[in-house]
């Protein structure tokens, strides 16, 4: 009796969310996977006019063998690394700048947070200009700005580069989300009791030692949180690339774009397979993280 009284009400309150998740997340993941193991590659099959058979993992094998998809995966990794590093570093620096109370802090903070308010569609409008790859005479965008301020040597083709072009797309992403990282770190900094800092200083620690041994460890969980949230955003990137570079460009292909194009070509099975691959990549990182935070909390 007591067991049900204990478990009943919580489960009831949670029920709507559990049901919604079961259907909209797990049910759909299963449905997607089911599509990915068939040979549903044409319009006729997609609408049931022609039958499709289960081919198990053939689609995946084919996909992973093609060097176009490998190129997409490479782009994804590169993009994620640059994006994460850039956002974490910038966000941390800004939080570090602002963590000491100072005049005008509110203004600075609002300015740094502002890009978060902008949608990728909106920022794509201007970043497309800024990242224009023309140099020297025909330069516009950032290349032109570099010329104006005398930093000519900084000019480069941005996203038009075959191997590293995708890193240029990370720049607008960093611009937009460093503010969020900053907010996280700022909260983290503020959350460290001053007594800790006092104590460290009393013990004769220098600024650097203070940071290294007191502040950074306190900030580690926040950094991890930020990494996870930003990281998974980068895996989903689609709007940004679409608005700056368009879907067809080889330089900036990522799996999310491949999914979109395959679906356009009525190749639902391969589109679903790419989706599942993305999901697996996400899962590989997130599941250990979730398990680790669970363990950490249980041991509290």
């Amino acid at each position, binding site marked *: 009796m007591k067991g049900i009284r204990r478990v009943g*009400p919580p489960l009831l309150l949670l029920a*709507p969310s559990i049901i919604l998740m079961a259907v909209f997340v797990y049910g759909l*993941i299963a449905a*997607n996977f089911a599509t990915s193991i068939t040979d549903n590659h044409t319009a006729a099959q997609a609408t049931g006019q022609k039958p499709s058979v289960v081919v198990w993992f053939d689609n995946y094998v084919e996909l992973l063998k093609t060097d176009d998809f490998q190129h997409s995966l490479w782009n994804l990794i590169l993009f994620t690394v640059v994006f994460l590093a850039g956002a974490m570093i910038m966000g941390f620096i800004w939080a570090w700048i602002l963590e000491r*109370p100072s005049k005008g802090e509110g203004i600075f903070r609002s300015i740094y947070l502002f890009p978060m308010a902008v949608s990728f569609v909106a920022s794509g409008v201007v970043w497309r200009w800024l990242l224009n790859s023309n140099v020297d005479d025909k330069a516009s965008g950032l290349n032109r700005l570099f010329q104006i301020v005398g930093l000519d040597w900084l000019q480069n083709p941005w996203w038009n580069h075959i191997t590293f072009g995708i890193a240029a797309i990370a720049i607008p992403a960093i611009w937009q989300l460093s503010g969020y990282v900053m907010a996280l770190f700022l909260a983290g900094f503020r959350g460290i009791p001053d007594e800790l800092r006092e104590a460290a200083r009393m013990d004769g620690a220098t600024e650097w030692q203070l940071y290294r041994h007191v502040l950074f460890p306190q900030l580690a969980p926040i950094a991890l949180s930020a990494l996870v949230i930003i990281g998974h955003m980068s895996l989903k990137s689609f709007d940004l690339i679409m608005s700056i570079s368009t879907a067809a460009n080889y330089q900036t292909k990522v799996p*999310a774009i491949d999914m979109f194009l395959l679906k356009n070509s009525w190749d639902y099975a391969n589109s679903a397979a790419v989706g599942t691959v993305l999901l697996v990549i996400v899962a590989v990182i997130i599941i250990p993280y979730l398990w680790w935070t669970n363990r950490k909390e249980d041991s509290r």
Partner: protein
Amino acid sequence: MSTTALITTEGAVPAPAPVGNGRAGRVTWRTIRYALAIIGVIVVLIPVYVLLITSFKAPGDASPTRAWALPENWTLDNWKGAWSALWPSMLRSFEIVIPSAIISSVLGSLNGFVLSRWSFRGANIVFACILFGMFIPYQAVMIPLSQLVTNMHIPNGVPSLILLHVVFGIPITTLIMRNYYVTVPHELVEAARVDGAGMLRTYWSVILPISIPSFVVVLIWQFTNAWNDFLFAVFFSSSANGPVTLALNNLANGSVLQDYGVSMAGALLASFPPLLVYIILGKYFVGGLMSGSVKG
């Protein structure tokens, strides 16, 4: 963390004087900070500068080659054009965003409360399962999702977008609220329980009143996310019944002959509501985060 810390916003305690570094050291650090802050502001505002000045330029003037020059003639036409093109969809965006932000925040709050206070076997598993929903790439489920929404007979446009933003907002709101409630002192909840309050009563009279800071965080986050969403908008609505992101995309990329001035004015216009939210509520955002909402 005591509840008093929850309402703190800006740091009110002055930093203690550093020992052993001397005045010179302090001034240097301060100068460095200020210099970096200014550089940061410049870097962040470069795109905004281009957006702004282009939005005031006449069609011939507003071209990539003249990106950095000030307008030859300042004109408001672009803003007028952008407004008339975007205001119906902005209205719809509000219709989508406000209900979905509120509903998903409330659901997240309930979930967070239950998962942080009521430990039952498997609570952690349930939490992890809910949380995982936030990480899935939406493209991975887009095809079966559109089938599902149709089968549920939910009309395209505002209704289906509200549903989707609520459903897919539950994980992140649950995360933020749960992490927040974990910091609520046991005594508060115990006191209510001793008084004979059941779960709902405890939530209503004890938890809800002190949830404001984290509610602000989730509301801001959900508002921005839903407002800026494009993927769901493309699949589940059209220019006639969709949000402002879709209309902006039409404005910016739809023309046969590009009108950059209007596009940029439109981009700024579409960003105003979330921007206002961040300016007005920004400090609560940080404060809310600070009160333990998003610790690892």
